[in-house]
């Protein structure tokens, strides 16, 4: 469930960017990696854990903004495949810079509230797992409030629904898409901060996360935020079950089997948009 929550965040970031700019951002996993890595180095340099975490989230958000302004926006009119390749290139670049500026080792963070597991009805639970669940829930609630209560959130939804109409209405769609990249990078980084005490992180951790987040987004129905969250949780559970009942060696294959099954049997995913058009 903990892993699933992280996949859910990655998938959510994916969905945000996909909705606001039609880009499938395969650099999404790098934000998670940056979240963990920058926090570790900040913490190692003597910053309090919380400050280091905030710093990491800001760094990731800035990287997200630069990714949009320098790589995606200039190629606005390119085909989706070209844009995907650009994001893959960007992800390799971010990984490379991280490996050089920081390092190539595995790192962990101390758990926020100790390592003493507690037992609920026969199941043992790490405090950090609860932190992850709690943190993910907070992110979801904050995002939901932003989308449903603020005009800025509405303009993001409007841009996602119809970009040209949004421009004609007077919405600054470039600023909106920048916001989407920043928010989604920050969400990814929060995921990284929360998960690193359990899962460890290193410069190359983002690739697999991006692919699994993509699988979760596809499972939930590309473009649907609720679907992304459910898809992430379901994918996390499937992985754990397969590790438990089959072999943990096949764990990583689950995500890809899920992608194939979803695409073959229900291409719209669990919560895919029912396309209704009124004439």
């Amino acid at each position, binding site marked *: 469930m903990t892993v699933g929550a992280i996949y859910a965040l990655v998938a959510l970031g994916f969905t945000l960017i996909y909705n606001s700019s039609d880009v499938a951002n395969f650099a999404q996993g790098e934000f998670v990696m940056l979240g963990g890595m920058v926090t570790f180095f900040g913490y190692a340099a003597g910053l309090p854990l919380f400050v280091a975490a905030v710093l990491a989230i800001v760094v990731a958000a800035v990287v997200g903004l630069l990714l949009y302004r320098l790589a995606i926006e200039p190629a606005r009119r390119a085909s989706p495949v070209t844009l995907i390749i650009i994001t893959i290139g960007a992800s390799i670049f971010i990984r490379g810079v991280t490996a050089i500026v920081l390092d190539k080792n595995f790192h962990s963070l101390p758990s926020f509230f100790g390592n003493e597991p507690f037992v609920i009805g026969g199941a043992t639970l790490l405090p950090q797992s609860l932190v992850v669940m709690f943190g993910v829930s907070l992110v979801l609630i904050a995002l939901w409030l932003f989308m449903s209560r603020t*005009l800025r959130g*509405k*303009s993001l*939804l*409007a841009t996602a*629904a*119809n970009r*040209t*109409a*949004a*421009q*004609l*209405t*007077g*919405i*600054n*769609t*470039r600023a909106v898409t920048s916001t989407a990249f920043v928010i989604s990078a920050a969400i990814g980084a929060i995921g990284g901060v929360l998960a690193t005490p359990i899962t460890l992180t290193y410069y190359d951790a983002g690739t697999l996360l991006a692919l699994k987040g993509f699988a979760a987004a596809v499972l939930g129905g590309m473009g649907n935020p609720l679907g992304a969250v459910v898809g992430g949780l379901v994918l996390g559970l499937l992985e754990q079950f397969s590790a438990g009942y089959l072999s943990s060696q096949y764990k990583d294959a689950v995500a890809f089997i899920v992608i194939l099954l979803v695409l073959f049997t229900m291409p719209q995913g669990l919560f895919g948009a029912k396309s*209704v058009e*009124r*004439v």
Partner: protein
Amino acid sequence: MLAVSNLTSRYGRIEVLHGISLEVRTGEVVTLVGSNGAGKSTLLRAISGVQPVSSGSIMFDEQAIGKWRPHVRVAKGIAQVPEGRQIFTPLTVDENLRLGGITRRDDGVSADLAEMYAMFPALGEFRNKTAGTLSGGQQQMLAIGRALMARPKLLLLDEPSMGLAPVLVEQIFTTIGMLKARGLTILLVEQNANAALAIADRGYVIETGRIVTTGTGKELLSDERVRNAYLGL
């Protein structure tokens, strides 16, 4: 208020507007008549800044606006009701209207919102329903209301009566007449040339990306060529 001169625009390598010039003066209703594919919508999109322009100029209130981004043009007073309504279907009626006023810096947005509901009572009834559930006529009202929320000086209307039942078409033209009476400047693109020319002060006829004739609404209504080509008489 608006002066377009020698405007050309292309989709990829194909030029669709070949040097269009037209003018809309303050307080006028000007209509642009032409068949499918003549470039009417392209011209409106270019004026709003969502269609690239390859040469020529667009002046609005004595300023060259050709380089302005679309949302700036809305903020400066050019709002468009796009072809096919293009409302934000997943959002509610109320949210659609509020987004219409997103460029506003004054505090009259709530008052204008109330006015829209008074002008279009059907919208008030469904204010918290998602816009996608509205009927075609109501969606068109919403699209017009959304554009008016920006308090435009110039309203661009692209085929507002398209695909609507006759009684609704009449209602749309009544609305346009009302906006005209209030002094709003309007550039109206219509396939329903008869009704459009009847309400307009002046009109332009556009054929395959060129303005072929212009005159007052009355003159064009009685022009033999226009009658044959666009009025089916």
